[in-house]
C-alpha cells in the first residue's frame, strides 16, 4: 500500500502511514497533543494547524467546512478526525 509521512510538530515525531489514515488515529496512538471529542466531525475539538502538505490531505467535506467556519478556524486548519493523509508529506500540530 502507498505510504505517506505524517509529522507531529509538537512531539517532534514523523510517522510513516498508509495512505488514507485519518490524522486523529495516528495522533492518538503516537501521543500528540491534538485532542478530540466526538471523532465524528461534529464537535470541533480536534482542530489542528496544518503547517505543510495541506494539498496532501483529503478535501474537507461540506460538514467539516461548516464546523471549521463555526469555530472561526484559520485558513490552514482542519479537523484531525476528518482529514486523511493521501500521500507525500504532511506536518501538523495542535491548534
Amino acid at each position, binding site marked *: 500500500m502507498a505510504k505517506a509521512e505524517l509529522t507531529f510538530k509538537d*512531539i*517532534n*515525531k514523523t510517522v*510513516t502511514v498508509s495512505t488514507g489514515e485519518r490524522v486523529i488515529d*495516528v495522533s492518538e*496512538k503516537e*501521543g*500528540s497533543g491534538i485532542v478530540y471529542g466526538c471523532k465524528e466531525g461534529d464537535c470541533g475539538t480536534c482542530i489542528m494547524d496544518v503547517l505543510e502538505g495541506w494539498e496532501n490531505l483529503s478535501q474537507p467535506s461540506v460538514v467539516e467546512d461548516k464546523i471549521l467556519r*463555526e469555530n472561526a478556524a484559520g485558513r490552514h486548519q482542519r479537523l484531525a478526525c476528518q482529514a486523511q493523509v493521501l500521500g507525500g508529506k504532511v506536518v501538523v500540530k*495542535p491548534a
Partner: protein
Amino acid sequence: MDAVINAATNREAIQVAERVHWVGALDPQLRTFDLILQTANGTTYNAYLLRGSEGVAVIDTVKEEFADEFFTRLESVADYSEIKVIVLNHLEPDHTGALPTLLQRAPQAQVYISYKAPKMLKALLKDEQTLQFNPVNTGDEISLGDRTLRFIHTPYLHWPDTQCAYLPEDYILFSGDVFGCHFCDTRLFNDLCGDFRFSFEYYYAHIMRPFRKYVLEALQHIEPLELEIIAPSHGPILRDRPNSYVQRFRELATSKLPIEQGSDKTLLIFYLSSYGNTAKMAQAVCSGAETVANVRVSLYDLAGGEVEPFVNLVEEADGIALGSPTINGDATKPIWDLLSSMVMIETQGKLGAAFGSYGWSGEAVDMLESRLRGLKFKVPVPGFRVKLIPTEEELQQCHDFGVQLGKVLTGKTTHKVIDFEDLV
C-alpha cells in the same frame, strides 16, 4: 431594598428591575443535580421576563416538571401574544424544559440561541421539526424598542453553547449558568437570602473549573461591563455588589498554587508500591527527569496523601507520570481515584506517562496510558514496565524514561521517525 420577598407565598412574578421580572421556579427538595452535584438547599430555575417598548423577551425557561409554576408567574405580568423574543442562554433541559409549551403558546416568538447551539436544540426538540431559531454570537444585539439585549458567547461555561445576554439600559447581565449556584432561597436576592458562599464556590468547582481557560476568556468580555445586577439561571440574583462575584470568578480561575518555578516546566511523579519495586522505578524516573535543565520534578507516594490536594497540584503542572504495580490485572485504586478526580480540572495537552512493576501480566501501564489519553493528556513516551524487582539496567532505563519525559516537556526531543504499523 424590598422589605419582604417570599417567592413561595404565591406564583406571581417577582420584580427584579423596572422592566425585568423573575418568572422562575423553586425546587427546594433537590439534593443531587446532574448525578455529580450535591445541594443541601435545593435549587432554583431562574427565568426572566424583560419588557421593552416594542415587545417582551423571555430569557430561559425551567425544568419541565416546573413548567406550571413558570407559566403562572409569566402570565401574572405578560400575555403570550406580547412575547416577541425567547432567549435561551443554555440548552440544558433544566432551562429548556418549558420551551415546547411556550412555543405553542407564543408561536410568534423568535428564538435566539448561541451559534453553537442549533444541533443541540434540534436534538432536544426532536418533534419540533419546523422550529425556527436565530443563532447569535458575541456582539449581536436584538432590540425591544427602548431595551436591548446584547449577546456574549461564553463557550464551555459550561457547555459549548452557553452565552450571556446583557441589558445595557439597565446594566443587567442575564448570565445563564455563569455566576449561578444550587441554592434555593425564597428571598431570591443575594442581599436577603442565607449564606450561599459555599454553594457558589462548590458550583464553580464542579461546573466551571474544568474549563478554567474559557472562564478567563469569558471574564475578558464580562469584566468591562457596568453591572448593577447579575441574573443567573440558578440560585440568588446578585444585585448587591455584583462585581464581587465576577472578581471571585477571576480569583477562582487563577492559579491556586504560588508559581515558584518561574519558567521551568513541572513534572509530577505519583506512585504506589507494595514491595518497593515501583517506588525504585519512580525514584529513577525522577532522577532522570531532574537531569534535564529547566524541569522541576516532584515525587509523591500516593499512599501518603489525599486526592484533592494532588489534583490541585496536577492542575498547575505541565506533566505527570503515574507509577503503579499491577494487582489482579489492574492498576491500583488510589491511582484510579486520582485519575477519576481529574475531570474537575483542565488536563488537555499536559504530558502524561505511566510506568510500573508487575508480577504476572502487567496490564496497569497500558490501562493508565489509555485513561490518560481519555483525559486528553498527550502520551508520546511509551510506558515502561518491569517484571518484579528492577535490575540496575532496568533502573537505568527508568532513568532514561525520565530524561525523555523531561526533554518532551522542554521541547528538546530529537526528531524521531517511526512506522505506524509498529504502533498498532
